[in-house]
């Protein structure tokens, strides 16, 4: 029996320290305002000690942050952390995926490039297996329709969440990571209505993200059908940690791994 998963999401952004550019951990509100949250490697170690189920790293400024810098971080992390790692942000070639996998990633989150080039999902899934490809989908509710946005929430598309989610599945995605941009960093809870819709329409696992502020929000997400719930702000700034959140979830009779 599979356990439901709690997945801290670590957003990376380049920051200038004198003449040095360093990738730092940030959290975001509505994909816009970023708040510096520290060093990604040490934070990842804390999450591992708290028995998070997986980690997702997204390079949210892939235009300005070189993949080499992300790989350096990934390399350091995989020396000491023995849990599944997903990497995303600016993924636009099979070679890049190969590089990340070689350096310790298990899964790759794709978004903007694969939206513009859907065949890329199929190619990547054929080469690396469906289990390796996570389609990350960001959306906003507009006139009661869930509209997909790309370019880190900057560019509106003409597709609805449900249409694109089903397309991703048929192209060979292994999992979906769905985020309501307006819930991001809001502490208001997940967008349960859209989450339910997507879970009903696809057969692959769905990771829900955006808006978790209290343990109850995770429980609601699992009850709506999510296989995993991912959160950034929640784990970064509250005195909440995965161990406490886990106990709350277990108390609601949701199957979850308890700290060993």
């Amino acid at each position, binding site marked *: *029996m*599979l*356990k*439901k*998963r709690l997945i801290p999401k670590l957003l990376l952004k380049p920051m200038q320290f004198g003449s040095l550019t360093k990738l730092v951990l940030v959290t975001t509100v509505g994909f816009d305002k970023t708040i510096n949250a520290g060093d990604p490697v040490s934070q990842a170690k804390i999450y*591992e000690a708290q*028995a998070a*189920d997986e980690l997702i790293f997204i390079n949210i400024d892939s235009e300005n942050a070189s993949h080499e810098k992300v790989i350096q971080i990934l*390399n350091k992390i*995989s*020396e*000491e952390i*023995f*849990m*599944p790692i997903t990497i995303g942000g600016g993924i636009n070639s099979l070679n890049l995926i190969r590089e990340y*996998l*070689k*350096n*310790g*990633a*298990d*899964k790759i989150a794709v978004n903007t490039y694969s939206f513009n080039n859907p065949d890329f999902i199929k190619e990547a899934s*054929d*080469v*690396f*297996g*469906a*289990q*390796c490809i996570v389609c990350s989908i960001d959306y906003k509710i507009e006139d009661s329709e869930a509209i997909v946005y790309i370019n880190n929430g900057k560019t509106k598309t003409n597709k609805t969440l449900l249409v694109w989610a089903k397309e991703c599945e048929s192209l060979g995605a*292994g*999992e979906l990571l769905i985020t309501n941009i307006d819930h991001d960093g809001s502490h208001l809870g997940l967008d349960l209505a859209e989450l339910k819709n997507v879970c009903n329409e696809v*057969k*692959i*696992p769905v990771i829900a993200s955006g808006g978790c502020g209290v343990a109850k929000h995770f429980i609601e997400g699992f009850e709506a059908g999510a*296989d*995993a719930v991912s959160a950034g702000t929640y784990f970064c700034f509250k005195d909440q940690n995965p161990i406490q959140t886990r106990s709350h979830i277990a108390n609601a009779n949701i199957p979850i*791994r308890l700290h*060993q």
Partner: protein
Amino acid sequence: MIGIIDYGMGNLLSVKNAVEYLGFDAEIVSHSNELHNFEKLILPGVGAFPDCINNLATKGFVSELQREVMENKKPILGICLGMQVMARIGNEVRRTEGLNWFDAEVELMKVSKKEFRIPHVGWAETFVKKHFIFEGIKSVPEFYFVHSFHMNCNNPEDVIATVNHDKDFTAAVANNNIIGCQFHPEKSQEFGLVVLKNFITRNFNA
């Protein structure tokens, strides 16, 4: 020294890091003629069955593995697809012959209810039989799985662990010096590290 077989697929670094973290030496083996230098072998794997077997064959690993593992009885641990290719036949993409170390076929996991999603991704309670590879681990440990295909074994005695996902599926197999696990020990935190340690420290000649 543990040899981690590199045939161009799989997260080799994580496996190597896990072995080294445990305090043992490991090397990535890219040439089949080096296999005999290692005491034990690990066969990782990510991707599709036919690609895996083709890559192993192209790099000369298939014949060398048959000699080292079947004739010289060198211990080997297959992980995920690395376990699946130990089967007689694989049915992913197309019907393909495997290494034929287990009388088994690799098939797509079939489930009857929507709540059981495929790929089978995440931490799952694993029902383990008494076997040295699980020594020192609680009776129903959680391991990390990520796969859509499963190894359907004809000899029940080859199966040393199962996982339930609507039905029971093979989670680990063993036959003397040959061990395979569907889950990823290198990604399963403490329990996974114990499995790796049990494989590395076991005296297979005793």
